[in-house]
């Protein structure tokens, strides 16, 4: 039962514990274990992320109380595992769980969220820009089906695969350099600054992607047949460039390029082109459109026109160049620890004892185990 003296003791204990690097509490009951977690979680500022690891039934309240609960399965039964968020087989596995998988997944999810925002900002702003030329009557620049397919189709597989497979440092390096874990603790990959950067990138990309084809098309004939092709080919041209740019942008973001990555980025692009061609066939051109059969033959006419391919090439390069330069400058002249370790990991820079010397950026398998001494 908490009373005044008891509460004061609690806070004295907390203030004292905060000054220590580690605190060992023994002979504590399960409820007291839970109270320790609550104390740290609720009365520390800034509010920390708490994790509890336990292997027995007496650890269950503590596991439930913390933000992240890890249960060890084994000798003391499955109680801890059943109440935990993560289950591992040995205490020692905690290290790779946090330093390798925890870190990887933090990086992955940060990019997945930011990229999803970026690509939609890109798409929607282009629709908004068209308002300037359509008297702000909200005419859609793109056909309904091609537009609706953007998130579940043309730009879907790439980012999902990225979120599963992306790995910026090999297992060995991550384990050897636990200081890297601070990136997550300090929210370096997922904060307002990062958000602003991606959002601005989206705005810049869309400015190129929309205004370049428009400038080329205003009052001019951009078709080798001499005809003015109208709204749908114009919009599809822009959307095709957008889809290609958005998928290749992910390639820029990927730190480990696998065949799966290349395949999934290409898939989005191929799916779009294939989808637009299918939609342009007579029976399918009434599918999911406001005006049936309006999309008939559009993709064929567009793709036969060499100028549209040139415009797409131009736009994609223009969209990717600023991001490419920004990444290059940041990584080369303002490198973070992870950047330098990645270079070491790939065999750049000699003179590392016990380090890997294989593959200067060549294809190699990410193996666990191989320790890399970086300092």
């Amino acid at each position, binding site marked *: 039962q908490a009373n005044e003296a008891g509460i004061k003791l609690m806070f004295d204990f907390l203030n004292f514990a905060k000054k220590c690097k580690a605190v060992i509490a023994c002979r504590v009951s399960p409820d007291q274990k839970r109270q320790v977690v609550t104390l740290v979680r609720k009365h520390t500022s800034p509010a920390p992320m708490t994790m509890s690891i336990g292997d027995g039934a007496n650890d269950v309240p503590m596991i439930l109380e913390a933000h992240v609960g890890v249960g060890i399965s084994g000798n003391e039964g499955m109680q801890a595992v059943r109440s935990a968020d993560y289950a591992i087989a040995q205490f020692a596995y905690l290290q790779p769980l946090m330093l390798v998988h925890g870190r990887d997944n933090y990086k992955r999810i940060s990019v997945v969220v930011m990229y999803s925002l970026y690509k939609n900002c890109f798409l929607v702003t282009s629709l908004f820009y068209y308002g300037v*030329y*359509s*008297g702000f*009557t909200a*005419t859609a620049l793109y056909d309904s089906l091609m537009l609706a397919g953007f998130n579940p189709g043309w730009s879907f597989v790439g980012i999902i695969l990225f979120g599963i*497979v992306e*790995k910026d440092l090999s297992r060995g390096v991550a384990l050897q350099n636990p*200081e890297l874990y*601070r990136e997550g603790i300090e929210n370096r990959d997922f904060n307002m600054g990062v958000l602003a950067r991606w959002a601005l990138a989206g705005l810049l990309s869309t400015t190129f992607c929309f205004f*370049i084809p428009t400038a*080329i*098309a*205003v*009052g*001019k*004939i*951009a*078709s*080798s*047949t*001499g*005809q003015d092709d*109208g*709204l749908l080919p114009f919009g599809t041209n822009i959307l095709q460039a957008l889809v290609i740019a958005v998928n290749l942008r992910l390639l820029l973001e990927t*730190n*480990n*390029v*696998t*065949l*799966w990555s290349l395949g999934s980025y290409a898939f989005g692009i191929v799916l779009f082109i294939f989808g637009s061609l299918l939609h342009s066939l007579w029976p399918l051109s009434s599918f999911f459109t*406001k*005006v*049936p*059969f*309006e999309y*008939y*033959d559009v993709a064929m*006419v567009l793709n036969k026109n060499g*100028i549209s391919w*040139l415009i797409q090439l*131009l736009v994609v*390069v223009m969209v990717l*160049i600023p991001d490419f*330069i920004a*990444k*290059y400058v940041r990584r*080369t002249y303002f*490198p973070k*620890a992870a950047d*330098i370790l*990645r*270079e*070491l990991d790939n065999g*750049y*820079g000699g003179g590392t004892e016990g380090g890997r010397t294989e593959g200067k*950026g060549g*294809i190699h*398998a*990410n193996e666990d185990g191989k320790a890399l001494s970086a*300092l």
Partner: protein
Amino acid sequence: MEPSNRPKGDAFRQQKLTAWQPIMTPLKVVVIFFAIAVCFIPTGLTLLSSSNEVYEERVVYDGSDQTVDCSITTEGQGKVCTIQFTFTEDVDGPVYVYYEMENFYQNHRRYVSSRDPFQLEGDEVGKSDLETSCDSFVTNGSLIINPCGLIANSLFTDVFTLDSTNSIPQNSTLDESGIAWASDDVKFKQPSGFKSKAVNNFGTSCTAEGLPVDCQQYTDSSGQKYLFYYPDEDDVQYLYESYPGLISPIDGVTDEHFKVWMRPAALPTFRKLYGKVEGDFQANDTLIFSVTANYEVDSFDGSKALLLSTVGEFGGKNPYLGVAFVVVGCISLMFALLFVVKQMVSPRAKADASLLNWT
């Protein structure tokens, strides 16, 4: 045998996929930018030179910046004027003839969707369905308008004819065919029940020519006589009735100028193909067009122009595409040089462990 809980060991599930970790070294980046410059600058210059070879002449005949006064203030005014194009250089044909409009928003949201594709295809569509799809211009009094909608009933009504006798080279003709998409044939068909027959004289009776008894007569501009029949004439106002003299009853919605108009333009300044003049032209050749202005644009500050243009492999006269390529190529080149200089002046050694900062 106990089922095993051991996770599958394949590379994908164990995150052990063979991967290539791209490291942006200055060399690689510089090479990439140089490659872009090397690809883009010549491409841009080729596009520019192709665009420069295109011959284009534009005459605004109704608008604030008109050079020929053919402006009208009432719809259907029928003012006739002449526009003469004199070639300033030798030009290899065909020369395409366009009309260009400014400040006309064919891309207005309600305009673009105001049409009934089934009616245009020739099907009979009920009035309530037409009201949903077209929203405007569905009926005219007690008549149903076929085709309904804003696009069909705002057809461009100016007529351009080429004065063959006075143009040089003589006997140049304006070919008004092949201006719409080939695939439009499927979308635009005469109403089902429509019948027509070319005849030598109007002496024959409708039934003798296989038409219903109340068929009508029509003679086109070349003197060819036709008998034709539209179903439900008493209840429906067909396109040839909405635009007498402009749309022949034989063509109806399959008229190419109509099909071109029915494809809404993407931007408020647009050109639409009217026809082409075959043949090659020499400097000082002239093409004389007679314009009958019926389409009133003054009330919304629009303008109309007649345009001649040849078409190269990369479209009409369009320097922006070439310029954009050259500009991007030059920007790439600039960055390539910038990075070379920076790398020579103050490089950052790769994988320099002393740079690791653990803050």
